[in-house]
C-alpha cells in the first residue's frame, strides 16, 4: 500500500495534465470555440489520490462532473475530452449526446451519469450489490459534491450499502460551495462524513488537497470493502477555485480575497514544491512535464477541431438496446 517514488511522481503528472487540459477548456470557452465548461480545478489532488487507490480497470466508478482528473487516471484521453467539449463524433462518453463532463467510459468500468445530482450514488450501491452476489473481488468508488449529499438519493444509497455491507466508497468532494450556496446552508454537521454515523458506517474526513493522504484513506477503505467489511463515507476537503461553470459569475457571492487566498494553496503548487523539496523532482523535470502536457493538450485541441460532428441521423438512436450499433 506504500506508494513508490514513481507512483508519487505519476500522481503529480496526472494532476498536472488534468489541470492544463481544464485550463485550456476555459480558454476555448473564452474564444467562443466551445459552448460550456464545468471545471475540476482545485479538486485534482483528491481525485488522483482516490483513483490510485483503486484497482483501475477492475474496480468500478460512478463519477460526477468535476472528475476530469479521476477520468484521466482511468485512461480517458485528452483527445476524448476535447471531442466531448466540442460535441464531436466518436466522443466516447455519449457520442455527443450529453453535455461535456458527463462521463462514461465502459472500457474503464466508469458508468454513465446524468445531470440530476446524486443519481449515481444508488447505481454504485446496486453495482456493489451485484458484485457481492457474484462474489467478485471488486469495489465501487462513487463521487459527489458536498451540496448533493443533501439529496435523499444519497442517503438511500449509503443506507443500502450499510445494510448490506456493500463494497462501496462514497467519496464526497467538498469544495465548500454548491454553485453559490456554502456548506453551512447545506448541512448542520461539520463534515458530510459525520452523516455516516447516523447510518451505521464509518465516516472519515481528509485533506483533499493532499493526494497522498487521500490515497491512504481511500486505499484503506478499499481494502476494508474488499475483505467484506462494508462501505465508507470519505469527505475530502478542498476549494472550488473557479466559478461553478462557464455560465456562472462567482463575484456575485464570494470575495476575490477569499478565492486568492485559496489560489495560494493550490494543490498543484503545493505538491510540486513538496516533491522538489523531497528531491523527487527537479525544476527541469517539472518543465519537461509542462512541455509534455502542453503538447498533449495542443494535439487534443487540433485533433478535435478537425474531427467531424455527428451526422444528424445519429440522433435517432440508440433509444433501445436493440438499436446499439457496434462499429
Amino acid at each position, binding site marked *: 500500500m506504500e506508494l513508490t517514488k514513481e507512483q508519487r511522481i505519476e500522481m503529480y503528472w496526472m494532476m498536472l495534465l488534468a489541470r492544463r487540459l481544464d485550463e485550456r477548456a476555459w480558454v476555448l470557452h473564452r474564444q467562443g470555440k466551445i459552448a460550456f465548461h464545468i471545471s475540476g480545478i482545485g479538486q485534482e489532488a483528491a481525485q488522483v489520490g482516490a483513483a490510485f487507490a483503486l484497482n483501475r480497470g477492475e474496480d468500478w466508478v460512478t463519477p460526477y462532473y468535476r472528475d476530469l482528473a479521476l477520468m484521466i487516471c482511468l485512461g480517458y484521453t485528452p483527445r476524448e475530452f476535447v471531442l466531448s467539449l466540442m460535441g464531436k463524433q466518436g466522443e466516447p462518453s455519449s457520442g455527443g449526446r450529453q453535455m461535456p463532463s458527463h462521463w462514461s467510459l465502459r472500457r474503464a468500468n466508469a458508468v454513465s451519469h446524468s445531470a440530476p445530482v446524486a443519481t449515481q450514488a444508488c447505481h454504485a450501491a446496486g*453495482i456493489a450489490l451485484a458484485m457481492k452476489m457474484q462474489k467478485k473481488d471488486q469495489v465501487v468508488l462513487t463521487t459527489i459534491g458536498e451540496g448533493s449529499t443533501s439529496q435523499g438519493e444519497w442517503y438511500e444509497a449509503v443506507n443500502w450499502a450499510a445494510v448490506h455491507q456493500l463494497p462501496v466508497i462514497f467519496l464526497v468532494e467538498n469544495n465548500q460551495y454548491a454553485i453559490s450556496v456554502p456548506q453551512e446552508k447545506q448541512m448542520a454537521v461539520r463534515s458530510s462524513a459525520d452523516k455516516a454515523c447516523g447510518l451505521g458506517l464509518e465516516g472519515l474526513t481528509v485533506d483533499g488537497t493532499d493526494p497522498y493522504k487521500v490515497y491512504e484513506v481511500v486505499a484503506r477503505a478499499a481494502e476494508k470493502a474488499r475483505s467484506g467489511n462494508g462501505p465508507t463515507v470519505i469527505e475530502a476537503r478542498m476549494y472550488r477555485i473557479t466559478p461553478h461553470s462557464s455560465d456562472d459569475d462567482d463575484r456575485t457571492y464570494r470575495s476575490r480575497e477569499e478565492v486568492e487566498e485559496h489560489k495560494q494553496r493550490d494543490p498543484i503548487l503545493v505538491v510540486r514544491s513538496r516533491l522538489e523539496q523531497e528531491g523527487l523532482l527537479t525544476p527541469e523535470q517539472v518543465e519537461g512535464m509542462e512541455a509534455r502536457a502542453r503538447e498533449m493538450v495542443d494535439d487534443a485541441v487540433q485533433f478535435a477541431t478537425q474531427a467531424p460532428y455527428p451526422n444528424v441521423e445519429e440522433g435517432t438512436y*440508440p433509444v433501445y438496446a436493440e438499436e446499439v450499433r457496434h462499429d
Partner: protein
Amino acid sequence: MTEMTLIEAIRQAMDEEMARDPNVFIVGEDVGIRGGVFRATVGLFDKYGADRVIDSPLAELSIVGVGIGAALYGMKPICEIQFSDFIYPAYNQIISEAAKMCYRSNGEWTVPMVIRAPYGGGIGGGLYHSQSPEAMFAQVPGLKVVIPSNPYDAKGLLKSAVRDPNPVIFFEPKKGYRLIKGEVPEGEFTVPIGPARISRAGTDVSVFAYGMMHYYALQAAEKVAAEGISVEVVDLRTLYPVDRETILASVQRTGKALIVHEANLTGGYGAEVAATIAEGAFTDLDAPVRRLCGPDVPGVPFSHPLQDWFMPNPEKISSAIRELARY
C-alpha cells in the same frame, strides 16, 4: 393447459425465469418472507433464498436506483413497487436514469430490468392505492410499458420483459389478480412485447383497452352482441412502443373507435390512441372517436358510491358502445 389466476401466472413467470437464469433476482418491499403484500412472490423466498428475493428498505427510489446499478453490472433485477401509487419517489431514477442510459451513453450502457407495479382502482383503495399512472411512463422513449389483461399474456409478457435488454415497466391490474382466470399452457412460451392483440373480432365498433378495462370491454362486447352490435376488442397490451398498425387496421374495419381506460381523461393514454386514429384513419371514421375514462379528479375516491362514479365498468362501456353504434 391449467387454469390459473393472473397473479399465479405472474408468480410462475418469475419462478421460471429465476430457475432459468441465476442473474434474475427480485427486490422490493415485503417481497421476501411475506411473499409480497399481494402475495405475488409467495414461495420464491423459500426456493431461492434471501440473496435473490431481497426485502429492500422502505424506499422506492433506491429499489429502482439500486436495481439499475445491478443491471449495469449484468444482473437482471425484477423490482417490485408495492403499489403504483408509490412509484413517484422512483420517478427520477426511471426517467432520468433507466430510460436515458442507453441513448445517453451511445449504447455503451444498457439497463435490462423489470419494474412491476400493481395499478388500478375499484378495490376500495382510495386516492393512494388505486392509481393508474401509465400515461406518465408511456410517453418516455427508452422505456417499454406493458399491461397484461389475462393470465396467458401476463406470464408470456413478463417472461419477455425479464429477457428484454431494456427497462420494462410492467403494470399489473391488481383488481384482476384473483378475479381474472384463464388457461395457461404447460411449458415454455413467451408473448412478444410490442404487438397489440385482437381479442374479439367484430365489424361495427372497435374498443381499445388494456388491463382491467380490457376484461370489462370483453364483457361489454358480449352484452351488446345480444343486441346485434358486433364489437371488435383490441387489447393494447404494450402501451409503449405503440402498435399503430393494429389500431389503424381495426378502425379501417369498423369505422368507429371507443377507447377505455380508468386513468383520468385529460392527457391520458387514450389521447395518443385518438391522435393515432385521427392521423392515420381519418377517412375511415364514421363517427367521432370516443373516450371513456376516469374523470379528471386527482384520484379515485374511497367511499363506495364515489368509487363507482369514478370507475368505468361493463355497463358504462356498453352504453358508450351503443351510442357509438347508433351514430
